[in-house]
């Protein structure tokens, strides 16, 4: 195995660990790009009309002289969301950590279909490149929002077509990936690794894969119809009598709400696809560092299943004010309030795990504590939007942006940080610097709240989303100091991530050597060397117990690896 060429080993590899790292670092690159786009948004909102000289050179059409035009702002928020969701967070959590960890945690040598795994990564990269290329078309990338509501998305310039094609390619990648995950978890578990002995990280990846498999086709069908509406003159989403920009369109028979149903049938499970892997990771981190069995393991699994199942019947809450039949509003409201219950169970069980534990505040645990505190805020603010009459007031306002960023950044991103601090020692055999990590997590936590908490206040003041310059409304102009404050904090928060990036790369090459099991954790990946050999384990491990047997009585140590043989 040692004689593999560099290309075969690190580029065209079929090893799930290498593919996982490829996903991880590609995802991180997109994460940086998505964040930069969000800073452009914040620049415009905080300091409307102020020039960013270097942007005048980079984007002379969208920001002549460095002053942003409305359509450039629209492109920034469209691509920020698209890149973050499709090309950063899911690839990092599922493609990256999922790929790397699932075979290790179930005691397998590799994924079930290694070549399919490789194809999945390269297809993802291809779709990412198509999305990136769309920035360089004459009229720029898509700018109809990541939700791409027709008729607007049908009449937008060419960037929207690239957006559609990129997502179609990505759907292929995702399909290959989710089939691979499901097959691997069902078929390749080590002897003794029953389903209810799997770590919650693996459970979460399993259910996420099932969600991706079932939700994404709805988007694929939707964008296929949208593409035909754009290039072939069909009318899936185009009603009769449209007059756009003075031109009468020869279309008839379509319905714009059909797109919204197709999109959100995918779009809402998508939200859980983003947060679920993080929920799994956080569960493992909390149990490991609290030195305490996870509270209600089976309940946690059933809660994940309940969220996944209910996640398919709540999509209409994105459409309470869309003009769909109000009777549907009632049904979707009831399913939406019910989906809050399994999320509440998970939160209480995390707290129950910390209760009467012996919590070691290592960096991953700090991230987990931050995750819980922000997940609570994200979850509770969701109730405002679920309750239909209240939603009438806050729908499409900043309140909603605040709500889901507490889930996406406070939740998913803190999950990514936790996973990085937790598993980098396994991936590279080096510990990350703890002091730098603590500073990074502390600063990020404080600044995150300073950026996103004010969004609730803006939303309750009735500030709609997606406004290039909210001060155009006299009623919203007095809130400008808040927007400027948020922008300053966002820029500082971005700078603070330098600590993370530096720590990551410095530790990979120069960090202190990590032992096999630096966190004294129970799960299988900690029984092999750091980093693991190409076939993961010297010999196939046998599993004797569940993953969370911490602090069991009558043992000399407070952990109990899943593979440890007991005598007598």
């Amino acid at each position, binding site marked *: 195995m040692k004689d593999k060429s560099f290309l075969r080993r690190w580029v065209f590899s079929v090893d799930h660990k290498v593919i996982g790292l490829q996903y991880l670092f590609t995802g991180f690159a997109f994460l940086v790009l998505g964040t930069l786009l969000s800073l452009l948004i914040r620049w415009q909102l905080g300091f409307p009309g102020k020039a960013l000289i270097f942007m005048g050179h980079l984007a002379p059409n969208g920001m002549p002289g460095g002053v942003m035009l*409305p359509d450039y702002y629209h492109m920034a928020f469209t691509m920020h969301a698209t890149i973050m969701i499709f090309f950063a967070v899911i690839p990092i959590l599922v493609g990256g950590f999922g790929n790397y960890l699932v075979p290790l945690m179930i005691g397998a040598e590799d994924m079930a279909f290694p070549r399919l795994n490789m194809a999945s990564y390269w297809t993802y990269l291809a779709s990412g490149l198509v999305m990136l290329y769309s920035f360089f078309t004459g009229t720029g990338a898509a700018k109809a929002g990541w939700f791409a509501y027709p008729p*607007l998305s049908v009449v937008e310039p060419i960037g929207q077509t690239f957006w559609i094609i990129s997502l179609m390619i990505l759907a292929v990648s995702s399909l290959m990936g989710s089939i691979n995950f499901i097959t691997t978890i069902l078929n390749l578990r080590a002897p003794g690794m029953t389903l209810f002995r799997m770590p919650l990280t693996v459970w979460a990846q399993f259910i996420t894969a099932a969600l991706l498999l079932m939700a994404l086709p709805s988007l694929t069908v939707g964008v296929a119809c949208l593409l035909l509406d754009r290039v072939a003159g069909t009318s899936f989403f185009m009603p009769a009598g449209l*007059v756009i920009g003075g031109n009468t369109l020869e279309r008839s028979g379509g319905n714009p709400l059909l797109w919204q149903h197709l999109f959100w049938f995918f779009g809402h499970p998508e939200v859980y696809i983003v947060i679920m892997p993080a929920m799994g990771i956080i569960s493992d981190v909390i149990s490991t560092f609290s030195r305490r069995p996870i*509270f209600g393991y089976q309940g946690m699994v059933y809660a994940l299943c309940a969220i996944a199942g209910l996640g398919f019947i709540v999509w209409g809450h994105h459409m309470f004010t869309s003009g769909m039949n109000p009777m549907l509003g009632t049904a979707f409201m009831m399913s939406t309030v019910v989906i809050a219950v399994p999320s*509440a*169970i998970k939160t209480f069980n995390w707290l129950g795990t*910390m209760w009467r534990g012996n919590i070691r505040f290592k960096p991953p645990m700090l991230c987990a504590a931050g995750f819980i505190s922000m997940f609570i805020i994200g979850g509770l603010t969701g109730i405002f939007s679920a309750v239909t009459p209240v939603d009438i007031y806050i729908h499409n*306002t900043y309140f909603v942006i605040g709500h889901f960023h507490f889930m996406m950044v406070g939740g998913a991103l803190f999950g990514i940080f936790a996973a990085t601090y937790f598993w980098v020692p396994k991936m590279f055999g080096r510990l990350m610097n703890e002091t730098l990590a603590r500073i990074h997590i502390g600063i990020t936590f404080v600044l995150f709240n300073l950026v996103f908490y004010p969004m609730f206040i803006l939303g*309750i003041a009735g500030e*709609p989303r997606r406004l290039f310059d909210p001060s155009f409304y006299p009623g919203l102009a007095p809130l400008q100091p808040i927007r400027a404050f948020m922008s300053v904090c966002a820029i500082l928060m971005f700078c603070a991530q330098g600590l993370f990036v530096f720590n990551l790369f410095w530790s990979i090459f120069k960090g202190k050597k990590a032992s096999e099991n630096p966190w004294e954790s129970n799960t299988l990946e900690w029984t092999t060397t750091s980093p693991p050999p190409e076939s993961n384990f010297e010999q196939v491990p046998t599993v004797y117990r569940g993953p969370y047997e911490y602090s069991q009585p009558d043992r000399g140590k407070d952990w109990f690896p899943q593979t440890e043989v007991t005598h007598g």
Partner: protein
Amino acid sequence: MLPKILSGWLLAPSVSSYGPAIDHLYNLVLLITAVVFVLTEAALVYFCFRYRARPGQKVSPSHGSTRAEIIWTAIPAAILVVLGIMSQSLWAKLRQPSRFPEEAMVVRVMAEQWLWHFKYNGPEGEIEVQNDFHIPVGKPVRFELTSQDVIHGFYIPALRVNQDAVPGLTSSVWVQADKTGQYELRCTQFCGTNHYQMKGQLTVESQEEFQAWLKSAKAAAF
């Protein structure tokens, strides 16, 4: 700016007949979530402090408690279902066209990139105005919304009205303003380049003033 951290959660007063009912529900949700927020975050902080790693600390080996899990499943479920039922009755009153006030005056709204057209039925035919529109105080008004190009959002925060204007579809909302004054109409659905400028201005005035305005608007239209 600092005091806004908490006071920012209080809604500005509503001026529509059903606004107080919405605000009441909002305040109830705010109260419930505030209590849950304080309790859970306090538990988190307390556990972080109380159970921080110390040598010799006794750790519970328990894998959980079904009774505790049933309790913290049942209580949130009960609260949420009650909230759901409460909002259902209000939602039906606001949105079910069969329950709209029958005597409501009809205003047809046609949205286009990037302005609002309002059509009134006057005694001598139809009157159309743009962006700046009036309604009488204390009278139910039904807006029939549609669009001629892309989707727009018809949002008057002070009246607690928010409804998309979708091409090919007519959506109705009703409102009864209980206080005279001027209120902003904001577009809440992204509709292209000048979305942020798609501002309307509502004037709520007495029946007499409204009639006079209708007359002058008609005069201006011809």
